[in-house]
């Protein structure tokens, strides 16, 4: 599989590691829990209506961090959101060929009105597991992610609880844009019961795992700059 074996030259991680070759897209509000919490206010300004099409964002290439490397939290914030995601790696004809675990790190933000570039596109703000798994070996809508901070479980993310099942999400996206070979699609991150996401602060080690998947581990550090 071409996209899984393509290696970024000069990357410090192992030669067989997965690394995104294309654009990384993520889906917002794809878990029922968060959707239901926000639903009573979706008609209010500034939204004035529930989203119809999938709400997407891009994780730019400067965010990519291999598993095992540190992620810097800027001085301006005390902690960041952990967005544990199952992600699809796309092949030809906008069909997924592999799955990989990623952490869509964000500066916590309440409003989903404007694009989240200054919250989601900071350097290093996406942890990426080292190995992808062939799509044939995964039932994406049954995957359960376990999120641990410093060894303690803080969240289980069950993809049975999505708003759009993985194929429906892809189909609804494909209605208006074509995912290219090598692109990556994050299927969504869930919130906790309080509506927030798990948080990480400098010094914390965040681990995202799922049965049969290569585990993603990143330590968060203060920004040295």
């Amino acid at each position, binding site marked *: 599989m071409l996209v899984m074996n393509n290696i970024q030259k000069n990357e410090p991680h192992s030669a067989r590691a997965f690394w995104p*070759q294309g654009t990384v897209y993520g889906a917002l509000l794809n878990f029922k829990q968060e959707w239901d919490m926000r639903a009573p206010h979706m008609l209010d300004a500034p939204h004035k209506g529930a989203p119809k099409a999938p709400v997407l964002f891009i994780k730019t290439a400067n965010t990519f961090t291999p598993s095992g490397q540190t992620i810097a939290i800027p001085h301006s914030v005390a902690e960041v959101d952990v967005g544990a995601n199952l992600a699809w790696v796309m092949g030809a004809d906008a069909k997924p060929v592999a799955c990989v675990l990623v952490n869509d790190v964000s500066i916590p933000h309440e409003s989903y009105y404007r694009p989240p570039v200054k919250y989601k596109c*900071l350097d290093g703000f996406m942890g990426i597991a080292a190995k992808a798994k062939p799509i044939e070996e995964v039932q994406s809508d049954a995957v359960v992610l376990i999120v641990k901070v410093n060894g303690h479980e803080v969240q289980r993310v069950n993809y049975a609880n999505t708003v759009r099942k993985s194929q429906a999400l892809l189909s609804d996206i494909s209605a208006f*844009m074509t995912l290219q070979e090598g692109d990556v699609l994050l299927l969504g991150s869930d919130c906790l019961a309080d509506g927030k996401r798990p948080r990480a602060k400098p010094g914390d080690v965040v681990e995202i795992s799922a049965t049969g998947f290569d585990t993603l581990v990143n330590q968060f550090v203060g920004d040295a700059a």
Partner: protein
Amino acid sequence: MKHARIAWAGAVHEAVESNGELLLTRSPWPGKRLKFEEVVWLPPLAPVPQARTILALGLNYADHAKELAFKAPEEPLVFVKGEASLIGHKAFTRRPQGVTHMHYECELAVVMGRTAKNIKKENAYDYVGGYTVANDYAIRDYLENWYRPNFRVKNRDTCTPIGPWLVDAKDIHEAYGNPMNLNLQTTVNGKVTQSGHTRDMIFDVPTLIEYFSSFMTLQPGDLILTGTPDGVVNCDVGDEIVTHIEGVGDLINTLSD
């Protein structure tokens, strides 16, 4: 120098503008001259080793901000686009059936030339490789107030024509002082529908580079589409839209169904 990337004779080539023609610069055709009509124009951007970051500004001209909203933004309103939305000069952009308001947006596109992190305004131009013209189409029928402007409006296949030329930054800086001194104009089927000037940007190019590079490292080949002035109108299938920026180029696009 004006650089182009073209398809001709079964392959992709780098070319430069020379006396109203394209001059191929590399093997196997160094010195070969071609007429503009003989080639297929691709986005004038060299391939990059990982996903190109394409930042685009909304409401970055005072008049356009007034046209679409009530007050100008206090910080850049930025969204990100995928590279698959880009197409070249003289190409076709698809207008979905049944939409009522699809409009062009003539924009000065900044192409980064060097890796940029924590750059100050005073030095920002040193990090620009060149400039080109982008037409950042929007389909207003699909606007939703979630991460607005949402991807269904702004990240569609074929909906970001770019080119024809990548003009070296130093040529623009020498001829015009800086890129904040250029006229913009759009014509639809030959009729002028949009006129503006880059000096009217709310956040100018150095400010944008300082802002973005304060939290994200930009790489050579990354793009900043700097927004569009007042004067966007609906266009229909068959319309020829020419987005012009003084000294940078005339980007031609035709809407198709």
